[in-house]
């Protein structure tokens, strides 16, 4: 056992910090702090900055453009990015599809598809969820039928994040209706979002924001080689994603930054001349959150060093549950700290906030909208109820 950050790790942190703090444009940092879904422009700009530094995908193998850092160093890097209010890079290409490609893709796919993800040139969206499926990938209904040198795709995807500005989609579809999805009936397809037959309908969420969409696939014809890896490997590939991103759902770097902002705001808000942060009840709630966030952070650190052990999947489920709950508690406490101002949306249209409703200071912008949007944190990426079922099954060998 050695439970300390080493001197090398601390030096690494300082090196990263120095670069990142200088590199994030201040207007972009403000937008990130407000917590809205980042604009495509901000994502591209920041991706380009990191790409030029060679840091766009630290978690990729070095041969594909990764940094060769240790898992702990990658974590430190993410923490420093969050602390500097850098935008959170688009998840779908860098975190999901990239690893799928270098794990399952052909050499041609690796050569053609990885570089534009790394540079931020191509943005991807993930076509997994469907109206009747939700967390249940076995009931995917979208079909891909071979027709000469093409596949013809028909179906409907939902909750597709960033579909409205993604260049391409990786899309789960049934390629063999006679075989169960788990046994080779599913495949993942890669295609342009501007292909004929694709239409995107925005879904406005309860925060009045637009980040998710419905995507209709109506006789979308794509080339025969647009399958990721082998036909029929879709189930395996989808399961790989579940176990691959074990710690990112915990969202620790971001929650640490949010907690810091919360404390700053609670020190500025006042009731009857007293700082809100000095009210015993608020102090207690902040302390409880802070302690729980420490626990989550150290669970992540443990998992970084554990590799893929037997309990890896249920641990990831636990991180997802706790991480989402902490995000919800943090954002809710922030709106509570704002008192009566918490009834106003303070959405993007409020801008940087010189003259805000309720005579509010500029730090309110984004707070209420984010609290509302984060109700989704316990729903997406496998609802927390499903995570509990996974734990019961994998830790205690119980089936439902």
């Amino acid at each position, binding site marked *: 056992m050695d439970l300390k950050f080493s001197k090398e790790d601390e030096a690494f942190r300082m090196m990263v910090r120095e670069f990142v703090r200088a590199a994030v444009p201040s207007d972009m940092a403000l937008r990130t702090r407000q917590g809205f879904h980042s604009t495509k422009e901000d994502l591209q700009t920041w991706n380009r900055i990191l790409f030029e530094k060679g840091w766009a995908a630290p978690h990729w193998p070095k041969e594909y453009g990764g940094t060769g850092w240790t898992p702990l160093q990658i974590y430190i890097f993410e923490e420093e990015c969050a602390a500097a209010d850098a935008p959170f890079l688009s998840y779908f290409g860098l975190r999901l599809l990239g690893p799928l490609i270098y794990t399952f893709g052909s050499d041609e796919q690796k050569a053609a598809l990885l570089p534009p993800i790394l540079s931020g040139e191509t943005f991807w969206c993930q076509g997994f969820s469907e109206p009747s499926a939700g967390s249940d990938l076995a009931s995917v209904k979208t079909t891909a039928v071979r027709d000469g040198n093409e596949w013809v795709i028909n179906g409907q995807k939902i909750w597709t994040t960033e579909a409205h500005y993604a260049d391409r989609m990786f899309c789960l579809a049934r390629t063999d209706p006679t075989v169960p999805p788990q046994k080779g009936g599913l495949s993942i397809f890669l295609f342009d979002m501007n292909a004929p037959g694709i239409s995107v309908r925005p879904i406005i969420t309860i925060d009045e924001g637009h980040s998710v969409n419905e995507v209709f696939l109506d006789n979308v014809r794509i080339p025969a080689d647009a399958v990721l890896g082998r036909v029929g490997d879709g189930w395996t590939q989808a399961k790989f994603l579940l176990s691959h991103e074990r710690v990112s759902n915990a969202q620790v770097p971001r929650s640490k930054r949010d907690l810091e902002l919360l404390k700053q705001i609670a020190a500025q808000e006042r009731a009857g001349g007293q700082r809100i942060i000095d009210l015993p009840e608020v102090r207690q709630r902040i302390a409880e959150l802070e302690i729980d966030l420490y626990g989550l952070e150290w669970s992540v650190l443990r998992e970084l060093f554990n590799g893929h052990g037997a309990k890896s999947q249920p641990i990831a489920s636990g991180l997802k549950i706790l991480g989402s709950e902490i995000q919800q508690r943090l954002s809710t406490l922030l709106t509570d700290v704002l008192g009566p101002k918490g*009834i106003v949306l303070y959405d993007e249209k409020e801008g940087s906030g010189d003259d805000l409703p309720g005579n509010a200071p500029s730090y309110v912008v984004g707070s209420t909208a984010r609290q509302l949007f984060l109700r989704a944190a316990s729903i997406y990426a496998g609802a927390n109820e499903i995570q509990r079922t996974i734990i019961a099954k994998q830790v205690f060998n119980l089936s439902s």
Partner: protein
Amino acid sequence: MKFSLTDEQSLLRDSVRRFVSEEHDLNRQQEALRRDARFSDAHWNMFAELGWLYLMVPESAGGLGGSAEDATVIAEELGRGLVGAPFLSTAILGAALLGAGEPTPQRNELLSGLMEGRCRLALALEESASRYEVDAISTAAQASGDDEIVLNGQKVLVQDGADADAFIVSAIASSRGGGISHLALYVVPSSAAGVEIRRYRTIDGRWAADVSLNNVHLPSSALLIPSNRAREVLERALDHARIILASEALGAMEGALAMTADYLKGRTQFGRALASYQSLQHRLSDMFVKVENARSMLYRGLSMLDAEPDQRAAAVSATMVTINQAAEFVGSQAIQLHGGMGMAEEYPIGHFYKRLRVIGKSYGDLSWHMNRYTQMTPMVEMQGAA
């Protein structure tokens, strides 16, 4: 003791339910609110025609002199339907405060307008630094000449303030000779010179306003409740209004719960009806238990509205603590049990949550009520009957 509705209350409830089912449509309402920054005049006229605006006006002023119980019957159904009317501001708070004023011709005219649906009112209390404390304000009322009052100040977060015809404004009244200044209440037409209104939406799709009062000259009849009893009258009206709000929240919780149960019955996942999963069934049960408990606390709050001010305050805050906690749980779990669909703005369930959150931050929030409760409750004494 009797918990069932009177025949009159049952009729009243049925009439609100009929309005909600026949006239009201949530999506259309939200669109219209967004477009017009104003609750539908046609619907508001129905409120007047159906007598709901007369209910809380004293009989002496031509109203029905109804009870808080009666008002909760209406509010509960409005909550269940998420009706976005300025009912609380106008028909509850407006009627209570105007009703408590001297029966001057000006006041009677306002009350007539209120009852007929011509005059919408909003209560302008909150300021940047007040955070629910009615006397932590700096808006000032200065006598000017013999029969004029000049108001200066900045009110914020005035609910239903965007389409109000008049505001009831709290201000510190300075007597001409100086001396101690006290809270008093004034009626300020929204059209008065020097009144500047900034309108904005709240998360429930309704509209609030910031109201700047810049040297607003008013006749002395604008004084509605003088400082010798303004604080007492206002606290009492607010406590009544809080209980009516609790009733609206209760209706919204019941609406959200029923909608969620229906949703779970209609959807399948992993080859089974969602409603067949025990963890989801038990969640519904927990929601039911919280809602029933909230209803009990609504009744307890109602029963204490005529008690001594400190007891009333403690009891109302106890009710609001319960309502707040139940609302957060029921509202958020209603979304959770809907899964992704619960996040869609075009689906109703999120609107329940958002309205419940607004209620939870209106005229006091959880921590304000908890604090008031502990302050008003002597910690060691023999407890009699509740």
